[in-house]
């Protein structure tokens, strides 16, 4: 590593990370489909390749070759730009995640703030998609999206700040480093606070990722496919890619904040593998919830956020602060 | 309200009506007392459950409108009928009495061309708005072609 000049690292690392993310997305969709299928007494994709292993590639090829339709009445520029505007923040969030000590694009000292700020930028893309389609379903969905994401960003941030207070650093590398060593150092095992924060984090993640039971902006039984109802072909693929990238990013964040990132038995060199496995665990947890519940209504989602989740996370955050101060200074 | 009581109370109120004796109680009145009969069935006989409304085309004897209402508490069913007479295709609407008559009368208009006077929204319901003719009339042949395919 030492032989590589720093400026080259700056080019190579994002390239590698982006490609790995795209690869991850394709195969994590397969994982989700297989997992969901087994949950539903099905077998899922099976025909393309052995046990359907080549299915994601077939899907990607299909989407690339599909006709790209732009509705005549759509706002063409906004419509075309929206998938890209949506995808960029979803990809940017990987910039600050350290995949092992020192292994990452850039472990900023305000890493978590960067992550949270950038990830909520995706609503711009969503709203552009909904507005630009000039479709009533899409418009309703876009309005819901703005409502929901603004409402859930606060609980999401507050629950993510609990580990920050526990670690005393905004730098993701520091937060991860503090959880190394023993299983009990993981923040999820921090008595009471850790578990509560984890549950709230998962709930807020579900909402931020638009997964059932909070998927009102996609809501295909009411709004058909919501903001992406008019998209097809590669643009649809970009939106899909962005969504899954966001999900993977959030899962990485959850694994980093609560599950000790790369800590695990074995030599330190397999740390990234542990991190990846934890990310998959987080992802499957979200998927498991997704395939177990029915969706709730838009107004109920907002009520849940403002009336329950926001006060709860805020209280938890204050409690955490008090506990941390008390444990370090003892009043 | 038992069937016998219902029979006598209807007989007292509707003098010219043909009132059957079996179950369900079949009551046939003239078209001008049709709505009154429904109101009476609902208020006096307690038949609050609206089952269905339809018509029968008796060819040259004209159309007959048939409706059935039930009193669910006492198990009393009343089959109300009225003969519109040859060539007549207008009848009073029951929508003011039973809200359920709304769609049923629309269907009846759709299929038989009976104009229910007083219906708030008498449009075709099952067939397309551009449909010509009323299919359930006996004069409408089964193989009548739909306009674009004529």
């Amino acid at each position: 590593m030492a032989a590589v000049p720093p400026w080259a690292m700056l080019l190579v690392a994002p390239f590698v990370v982006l490609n790995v993310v795209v690869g991850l997305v394709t195969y994590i969709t397969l994982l989700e489909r297989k997992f969901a299928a087994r949950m539903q007494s099905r077998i899922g994709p099976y025909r393309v390749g052995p046990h359907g292993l080549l299915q994601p590639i077939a899907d990607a090829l299909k989407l690339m070759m599909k006709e790209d339709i732009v509705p005549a009445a759509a706002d063409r520029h906004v419509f075309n730009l929206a998938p890209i505007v949506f995808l960029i923040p979803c990809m940017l969030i990987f910039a600050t995640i350290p995949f092992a000590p020192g292994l990452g694009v850039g472990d900023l000292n305000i890493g978590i703030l960067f992550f949270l700020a950038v990830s909520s930028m995706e609503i711009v893309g969503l709203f552009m998609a909904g507005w630009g389609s000039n479709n009533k379903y899409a418009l309703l969905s876009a309005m819901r999206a703005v409502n929901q994401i603004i409402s859930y960003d606060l609980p999401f941030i507050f629950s993510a700040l609990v580990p920050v207070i526990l670690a005393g650093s905004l730098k993701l590398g520091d937060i991860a480093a503090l959880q190394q060593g023993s299983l009990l150092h993981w923040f999820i095992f921090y008595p009471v606070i850790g578990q509560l924060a984890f549950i709230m984090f998962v709930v807020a993640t579900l909402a931020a990722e638009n997964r059932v039971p909070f998927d009102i902006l996609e809501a295909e039984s009411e709004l058909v496919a919501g903001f992406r109802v008019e998209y097809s072909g590669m643009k649809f693929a970009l939106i899909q890619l962005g969504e899954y990238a966001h999900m993977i990013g959030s899962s990485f964040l959850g694994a980093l904040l609560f599950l000790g990132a790369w800590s695990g038995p074995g030599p330190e060199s397999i740390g990234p593998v542990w991190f990846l496995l934890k990310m998959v665990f987080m992802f499957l947890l979200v998927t498991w919830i997704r395939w177990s519940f029915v969706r709730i209504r838009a107004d109920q989602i907002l009520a849940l956020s403002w009336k329950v989740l926001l006060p709860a996370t805020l209280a938890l955050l204050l409690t955490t602060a008090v506990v941390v101060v008390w444990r370090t200074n003892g009043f | 309200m038992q069937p016998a009581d219902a029979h006598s109370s209807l007989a007292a109120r509707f003098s010219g009506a043909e009132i059957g004796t079996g179950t369900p109680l079949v009551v046939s009145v003239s078209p001008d007392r049709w709505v009154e009969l429904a109101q009476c069935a609902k208020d006096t006989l307690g038949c609050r459950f609206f089952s269905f409304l339809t018509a029968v085309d008796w060819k040259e004897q004209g159309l007959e409108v048939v409706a059935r209402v039930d009193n669910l508490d006492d198990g009393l069913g009343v089959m109300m009928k009225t003969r519109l007479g040859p060539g007549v295709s207008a009848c009073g609407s029951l929508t003011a009495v039973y809200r359920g008559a709304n769609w049923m009368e629309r269907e009846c208009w759709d299929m038989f061309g009976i104009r229910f006077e007083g219906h708030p929204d008498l449009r075709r319901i099952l067939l397309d708005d551009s449909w010509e003719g009323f299919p359930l009339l006996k004069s409408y042949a089964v193989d009548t072609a739909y306009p674009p395919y004529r």
Partner: protein
Amino acid sequence: MASELATIVPAVIRAMGMTLRNLFRKPITVHYPDKPRTYPDRYRGLLALTYDKETGEENCIGCRLCEYVCPPAVIKVEMLKSEKRNYAKTFSLELYACEFCELCVQVCPTDAIVMMKSFDLATADRREMLLDKDRLHAIGLQHQPSWATGNLLRDMQTPPKAAAPAHAAKPPAAATPAAATVEPAAPGKAEPPTPKPADSTPAKADA
């Protein structure tokens, strides 16, 4: 709030437990074209004309009963009069409109038309589903016939000849407990006329 949580949390866990439990159940998917499914004996599938095994003669006598009974009118038969027996000059069946009600099989006096244990109708050309006599014969050779033929069906439905003494109002609760275990009408053979006097309790008078 606390009491709400006390019901909500177990309910959420129970629901997720159900999906988890199903995760470990065997999937019920059938790999359909790869592994053919098993058809029950009475399956109502493709239609075929039967031919006499020894003489190779068709069983159809062109009586057109099936043509008359067919609700969607997909069967067209022309009779060919002959000395000993009649034949079907042409027999066409528009399978694309067929609704597989088995009425044609039911009325066939000579068991000439039967149904097959197959539902492989998919074809790229609609005209292939307009079946003539040859195609109907070929289908009969290709697939397994179902149990039902006209005579078997009619035997199953015919009430026993011996007029049942009308004994009044048999209490059904007192029906023989053995009735639960008796299995009448094995497929493959017609239901034997039951020796017992048939129960002929009048049907209820529906209001």
